[in-house]
């Protein structure tokens, strides 16, 4: 590749090769975006993590390129989103074309007042590199390259691994194992796990090209374009003037033939014009599947990312949902490892994230059916929708070129305390926190104040001595909860309490807040309870519920 030089990370000889296998609270298998995010989150929580990867570099080829707003918000919490945003290409507008004409365009973030954009495009190798660099700043992470897991033995109290290195094999034990070793999960195979779902037979060509062009930073999707009849095509801008192009090839395409430059170049010239000057950086031909493991927890092994679930690429729901997996898992694992929550809290990792995976698979399967219609009737309806969409607004909502990744609302989670008073639906328990502009000591966005631990957000409370006393007590609980007071006139700092001022009406509108309204956020920034007034006992009960003290 011309625009990027793959880093080679140094192999380190295992120091624990001889003698009794060392034990780790958590071992992560796989140093991709999901495994690295898990390790960083756990290390920031004070848990020592061993990360094992069989390779010694980052992703070859751009692979995942669309990083969602929610992913950036999670990485903000982990202190590494800014580099991605600086390097990446922001976008929120998508355009859809049918044959030669634009059918319509959409904006994925139509409302103002959010810190992060709807999406940035950035090659996966940059994301992995930035995460490796973030991980290496944290003393709790031991990241070992060219350490391949050869055997896994699940035991009642631990998982025993045998690891192969250029210097031979060694054994190591994990109290908990996070399996993030990708789509062809070797650990999943060693444990005999099978995933269930659909295989799609259409082949796609993916090509990264280097090209200086004034095409806008938008997602352009063509159905049946003149330059690639009866198939679809997708164009995305990435960093370094690299462009991602996807061509649907159909079922009968020969993957080896299609990868050859002499086959790719005419396709690209037909799309970009004879005068376009470009170089191919990387190309691949793929098919895809939509499937998941039946359960993401198998005893002390917890599966995340592609090792747990696979979706089609339309919708950017692969890597983004994997990062949401570990966002969900890390705080639960911290509480279980430290003995503050029962193991069954980890069953809610399974129930919450399999529900999210089903949502992603459902969207992804529907998009695939629209993009690659099976049979004449499907194709006729698809074309009818596209013809109508050019003229009539109603049909635009039926056009499905990929429903782009949004975080799951964990509506049916047993960790939620249901509303007992009327509220607008938007921020119902289970919802990920929605950002809004604020002012305060730690940043100008609401999300700067939420996360790591539990957070109670109280709107315009009367800051009585009793209230501040209760909040100090919450902050001193074994599972601590810090409070953030919105727009309260106070007498200065108080233990466990921070103050923010809304920068506009957006905050109270988005949260349907009145004076006294209180929201309780989990450490992953999802709402788990809300009330029209603060009550210490109810807050403690909601925290107990959200930490699996009484899951039913």
């Amino acid at each position, binding site marked *: 590749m011309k625009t990027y030089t793959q880093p080679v990370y140094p192999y380190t000889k295992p120091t624990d090769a001889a003698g009794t296998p060392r034990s780790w609270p958590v071992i992560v298998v796989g140093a991709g975006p999901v495994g690295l995010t898990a390790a960083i989150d756990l290390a920031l929580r004070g848990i020592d993590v061993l990360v094992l990867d069989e390779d010694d570099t980052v992703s070859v080829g751009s692979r995942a390129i669309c990083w969602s707003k929610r992913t950036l918000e999670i990485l903000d919490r982990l202190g590494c989103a800014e580099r991605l945003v600086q390097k990446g290409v922001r976008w929120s507008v998508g355009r859809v074309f049918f044959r030669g004409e634009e059918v319509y365009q959409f904006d994925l973030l139509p409302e103002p007042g959010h810190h992060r954009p709807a999406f940035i495009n950035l090659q996966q190798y940059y994301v992995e590199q930035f995460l490796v660099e973030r991980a290496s700043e944290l003393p709790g992470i031991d990241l070992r390259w060219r350490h391949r897991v050869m055997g896994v033995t699940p035991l009642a109290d631990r998982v025993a691994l045998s690891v192969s290195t250029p210097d031979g094999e060694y054994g190591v034990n994990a109290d908990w194992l996070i399996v993030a070793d990708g789509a062809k999960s070797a650990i999943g195979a060693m444990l005999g796990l099978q995933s269930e779902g659909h295989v799609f037979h259409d082949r796609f060509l993916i090509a990264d090209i280097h090209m200086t062009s004034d095409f806008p930073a938008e997602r352009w999707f063509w159905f049946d374009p003149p330059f690639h009849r009866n198939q679809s095509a997708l164009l995305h801008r990435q960093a370094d003037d690299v462009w991602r192009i996807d061509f649907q090839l159909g079922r009968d395409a020969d993957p080896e033939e299609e990868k050859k430059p002499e086959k790719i170049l005419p396709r690209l010239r037909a799309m970009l014009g004879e005068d376009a000057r470009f170089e191919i950086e990387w190309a691949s031909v793929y098919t895809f599947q939509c499937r998941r493991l039946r359960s993401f927890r198998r005893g002390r092994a917890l599966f995340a990312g592609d090792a747990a679930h696979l979706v089609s690429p339309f919708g950017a729901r692969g890597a983004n949902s994997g990062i949401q997996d570990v966002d969900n898992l890390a705080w639960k694992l911290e509480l279980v490892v430290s003995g503050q929550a029962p193991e069954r809290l980890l069953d809610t990792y399974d129930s919450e994230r399999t529900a999210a995976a089903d949502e992603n698979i459902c969207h992804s399967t529907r998009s695939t059916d629209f993009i690659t219609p099976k049979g*004449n009737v499907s194709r*006729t309806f698809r074309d*009818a929708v596209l*013809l109508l969409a050019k003229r009539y607004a*109603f*049909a635009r909502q039926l056009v499905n070129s990929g429903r782009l990744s949004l975080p799951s609302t964990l509506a049916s989670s047993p960790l939620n305390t249901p509303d007992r008073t009327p509220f607008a639906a938007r921020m119902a328990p289970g919802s990920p926190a929605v950002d809004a502009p604020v002012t305060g000591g730690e940043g100008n966005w609401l999300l700067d104040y939420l996360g790591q631990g539990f957070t109670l957000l109280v709107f315009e409370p009367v800051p009585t001595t009793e209230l501040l006393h209760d909040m100090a007590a919450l902050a001193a609980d074994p599972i601590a909860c810090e409070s953030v007071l919105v727009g309260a006139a106070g007498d200065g700092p108080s233990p466990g309490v921070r103050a923010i001022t809304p920068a506009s009406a957006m905050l109270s509108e988005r949260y349907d807040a009145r004076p006294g309204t209180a929201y309780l956020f989990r450490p992953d920034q999802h709402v788990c309870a809300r009330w029209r007034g603060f009550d210490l006992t109810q807050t403690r009960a909601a925290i107990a519920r959200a930490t699996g003290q009484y899951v039913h």
Partner: protein
Amino acid sequence: MLNTEPNLAAPDDFYQELIALHRDLTEEQSALVNAKLILLLANHIGDVDVLRAALAAAREDVAP
């Protein structure tokens, strides 16, 4: 609820216009026009219970 009682003021006129809509079209074009018509009418109805009743009624007496 799906209205299956007579509701067209001039049924013969409508039927003639429906057939005329397809004049000079190939089978493929007719299928496309029918699909567009279904989508236009479905959006006009909007009510998903009515639409489901219509989907079910359309499949009556048609076995795969």
